[in-house]
């Protein structure tokens, strides 16, 4: 059984302009000890998916349907009190902007110690030691001194390490990292990705890494789910996906990624057009209006996910499945 099994998740928002179908029928699973990437551009529903798993969306404006099974238990059926227990104890989460997730008027040490005391039943005398060890685990140099400092005294990379430490305090089975390196500089990004890899290796934590950056996907993940307009459009082992993408959107996205070794001409492969408005009813394939190969059939009938090769599924009428032996 998978650690996390998301089945046919729908998350809709009530907005002024109508109902926004931000996530529309997304299914995926995360196995123990693996890193799953959810990749897509802004508005594709990747962050809403993670917020839905954590049940962190405003209840009056957002509603989810489907199943989110964590060890077989549907998170959507839990009470808020039970859910509070799940957050932190079973699923840890780190966000893009570490500054806004930390309390500016408490020292770093106080915040880590508070989380330790809250989630672990250890004698209060040991709380400080445990907190210190957590900070050392996430590679914070001179951790004892850092514990007496306030979040604003730390750099972005350090703050993200603190966030990771906080998320890992209870040794959750699953860590959701939503754009954890987007706000960081490249040299720091490399450090944080390395840290996540180390933690996974040492603690066997499963990670869902949500990102728009295919470079990060390539560096740090085992399997990748590509989302577009609230739908999962392709899923494959990361290496396969990057080497031989089957969906035209994934292909376009990969081609559009600027790589070192350009020719200075400025030409990049682009995907024309814009993401569709998710508040309007959609017929046919969500990508059809930007797809160079789209046919009338594509515009009329939405493609379902189909196995195109072993372990490789995609939602595109035009991608022929390999003949499977």
């Amino acid at each position, binding site marked *: 059984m998978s650690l996390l099994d998301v089945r046919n998740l729908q998350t809709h928002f009530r907005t002024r302009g109508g109902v926004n179908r931000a996530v529309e029928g997304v299914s995926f699973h995360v196995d123990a000890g693996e890193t799953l990437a959810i990749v897509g551009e802004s508005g594709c529903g990747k962050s809403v998916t993670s917020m839905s798993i954590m049940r962190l969306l405003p209840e009056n404006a957002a509603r989810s349907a489907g199943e989110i099974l964590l060890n077989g238990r549907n998170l959507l059926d839990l009470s808020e009190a039970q859910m509070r227990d799940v957050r932190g104890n079973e699923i840890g989460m780190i966000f893009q902007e570490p500054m806004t997730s930390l309390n500016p008027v408490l020292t770093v040490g106080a915040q880590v110690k508070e989380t330790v005391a809250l989630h672990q039943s250890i004698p209060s005398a040991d709380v400080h030691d445990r907190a210190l060890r957590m900070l050392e685990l996430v590679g914070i140099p001179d951790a004892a001194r850092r514990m007496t400092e306030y979040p604003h005294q730390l750099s*972005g990379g350090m703050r993200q390490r603190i966030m990771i430490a906080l998320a890992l305090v209870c040794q959750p089975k699953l860590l959701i990292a939503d754009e954890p390196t987007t706000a960081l500089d490249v040299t720091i990004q490399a450090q944080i990705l390395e840290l996540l890899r180390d933690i996974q290796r040492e603690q066997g934590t499963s990670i869902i890494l949500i990102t728009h950056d295919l470079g990060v996907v390539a560096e740090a993940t085992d399997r990748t789910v590509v989302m577009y307009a609230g739908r999962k459009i392709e899923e494959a082992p990361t290496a396969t996906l990057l080497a031989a993408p089957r969906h035209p959107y994934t292909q376009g996205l990969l081609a559009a990624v600027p*790589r070192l070794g350009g020719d200075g001409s*400025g030409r990049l492969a682009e995907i024309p057009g814009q993401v569709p408005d998710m508040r309007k009813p959609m017929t046919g394939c969500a990508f059809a209006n930007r797809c160079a190969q789209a046919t009338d059939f594509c515009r009329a009938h939405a493609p379902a996910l189909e196995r195109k090769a072993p372990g490789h599924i995609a939602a595109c009428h035009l991608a022929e499945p390999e003949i499977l032996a």
Partner: protein
Amino acid sequence: MTPLLSVRGLSKEYEVGRSLFGKTTKTVKAVQDVSFDIAKGETLSLVGESGCGKSTVGRAIAGLHAATVGEVLLDGRSIADTPSAGWHSRVQVVFQDPFSSLNPRMRVRDIIAEPLTNFGSTRAKTEARVKELIDLVRLPRDAGDRFPHEFSGGQRQRIGIARALAPKPELVICDEAVSALDVSVKAQIVNLLADLRAELGLALLFISHDLAIVDHITDRVAVMYLGRIVEIGTRDDLFGAPVHPYTRALLSAVPVVDPGQRRDRIVLQGELPSPLSPPSGCAFRTRCPLAEPGCAGNVPALTDVGPGRQVACPVVTRTTADVN
């Protein structure tokens, strides 16, 4: 031949922290002794991590703040002696954030027309020019009547580009102009900038932290670290054979998408030092794999290591000299 833009010994200090009686307690040296030229029609990129001062340089050239020390010259004439209309009809800016850089209460037509009316264009001429610009940046024809919030990020950045191009500038400063955009849209805007540059003979100052994008659009590159240029050279030279240890680390940290093309990575240890209390001598020595005790002494000066190529690292320049 005088270059189009010359920056000479530019430094910018900010006062931070005031005591109760209004005395400045600390100054941050955001930019120190930066000099470079941009020729007509040439693209120079300023790269570096956040806080390295690259945007501060751009803002000084854009006339958004005055340099503490040093000069910014356009065709040999200093920005200090040029009225705003004279400077800004030749130097324009495309801003980073496509959302906050457009006044939400103005129609697109009025946004694009603002520099035109300020620089004395007649009403009929302005109207014609706005139409021309909307076509030039490939916005839909009816875009002029609409408000910014009706457009997506990429479309809004096109509006910002149209506004910058309105007075027919010779130099456009792109301050992280594509950083906030999604990959597929980023490519659209980079392509648009490249096309416009070729079509209009623009010089670009391209400020970015994204080396891969820079590699696609630039002629020359200047790498900044903690307020100083540490390496400058042509794109081919600098990306092909980086000399300064920071440039090397920066290049190796760029994530690689294509499987099987992983490079050996130099993961820099440690954090960017605070600009409030930079290390003595070479600012990079605290993270530098090649640091020697001598690096703590003087601030290394940029030295020529080839035609149009300068590096501020005595350690590497000495070893290359030894080889020669």
